[in-house]
């Protein structure tokens, strides 16, 4: 008998009817989706569409107004400790302590996530992100691109099964952005990491994502592989589709 590849088809993220209202204004409304092991899913949409809000709810740092978030089948708000040890995140909205060196920062998080061989893992990540020359430099002295890479290294420390990345390439030069994308694809290939990804770089989204979720005013208005979404709207590329949706608002219909 052939064993089905459960590993690869596992649903690791399950979001049902997720909503968030801030002071009576809906930021996210009735969002549902799933992410499988090893899948890269892009969350895209105009400024204020609700991407960061969704990611915060998935990380359990923001309480939903309605709906559920399950990671590995467990409710993230009820099983924070066991779930959050298996995921990680990086975001343009956070930083790392400035007065610590690159290595010290990684050591702190290595302990927080209780890595079995912290020093080896830290060396490996410094090398992967070309941060070795800065290993003993204070974070204060890093360029913004180096800081971004350090945050990504922190996000990979615990070999997360699900990785949440909120605009991870925003401050990288084209060369580094390309290397980072390659690295994330490698991580996915080697460790079957699921990645939920936001970016305002549409080419990047086309290259990176197996599937995209197009968010507009807190709702998912299109979902599927980039190709499926483009053909539903009859557009050539995501950039054109993005402009059409952002400017035309919710009146835009799939053809």
């Amino acid at each position, binding site marked *: 008998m052939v064993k089905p590849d459960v590993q690869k088809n596992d649903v690791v993220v399950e979001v049902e009817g997720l909503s968030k209202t801030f002071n009576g204004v809906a930021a996210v409304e009735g969002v549902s989706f799933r992410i499988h092991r090893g899948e890269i899913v892009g969350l895209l949409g105009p400024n204020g569409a609700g991407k960061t809000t969704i990611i915060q709810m998935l990380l359990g740092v*923001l309480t939903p107004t309605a709906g559920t978030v399950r990671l590995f089948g467990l409710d993230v708000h009820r099983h*924070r400790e066991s779930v*959050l040890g298996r995921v990680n995140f990086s975001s343009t909205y956070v*930083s790392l302590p400035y007065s610590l060196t690159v290595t010290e920062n990684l050591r*702190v998080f290595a*302990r927080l996530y209780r890595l079995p061989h912290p020093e080896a893992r830290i060396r490996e990540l410094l090398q992967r992100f070309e941060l070795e020359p800065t290993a003993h430099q204070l974070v204060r002295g890093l360029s913004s691109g180096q800081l971004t890479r350090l945050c990504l290294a922190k996000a990979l420390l615990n070999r997360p099964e699900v990785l949440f990345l909120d605009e991870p390439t925003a401050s990288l030069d084209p060369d580094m952005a390309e290397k980072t994308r390659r690295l994330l694809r490698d991580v996915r290939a080697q460790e079957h990491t699921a990645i939920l990804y936001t970016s305002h770089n549409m080419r990047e989204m086309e290259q990176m994502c197996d599937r995209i979720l197009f968010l507009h005013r807190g709702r998912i208005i299109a979902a599927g592989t980039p190709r499926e979404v483009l053909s539903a709207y009859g557009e050539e590329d995501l950039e054109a589709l993005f402009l059409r949706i952002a400017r035309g608002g919710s009146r835009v219909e799939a053809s």
Partner: protein
Amino acid sequence: MKAHRVLAVTLRHLYLYKRSLSRMLEVFYFPLLDILVWGFITVYLQQFQKALPHFLVFLLGALILWDILYRTQQGISISFLEEMWSRNLLNLFASPLTPGEFLAATMIISLVKLTLSATVAVFLAWLLYGFNLFRIGISLVPFVLNLILMGWAVGILTTAVILRYGQKAEVLAWGLAFLFQPLSAVFYPVAVFPRPLAVVALAVPATHVFEGMRAVIQTHRFPVEHLAWAFGLNAVYLAVSLAFFYRIFRVVREKGLLLKIGE
């Protein structure tokens, strides 16, 4: 509560202190100035030794003990501010770290800071004025313990308010403990208060510590009653501040303030 996570956060702050001269100075600088100013005032007032036989012990002892409370409170709230300033809160709380583990780490840090600055203060008082704090004797231990407990309670309260109101409330990290100072009868007995104020003062744990300390020095009797009050009140203060902190943490998760705080 997982020890490795508590130690991770503790380590982060030890790295910080190891490197930061200004933070190290803060630990030593203020005790030094305090001891100098108050010490010389005391030396001067010693001329009236006959009227006030225990003056030196009263003032210098009170000063060193008050600093224990203040340093402990700061150890907690400033550690929190450091995370806020470096925009690290989301990194921490999107990991398995619990709010309770975070507080436990800040408590350890406050003990480290306190040990450093109290050692300096005690040593200086001995060096400059020949004042030996340990003269107060073994009763010092439960007194100090109560000051630490109250320092934690005030520190947790302060942290909760900063968590909720962000930078606007930052000043509390330096100021809230001092709100309790006039009430705590640090440098004078509760007897100087008018009746209604005395009642309020006696609801502050530190008041019983300082009253108790004076009783030891004057009567050489161990003030069991003051100590019992101090422990009882501290239990209440800690329970209330912890409940408040957890409640605020829930509000913060609802309003999404972890990402916004410090901006």
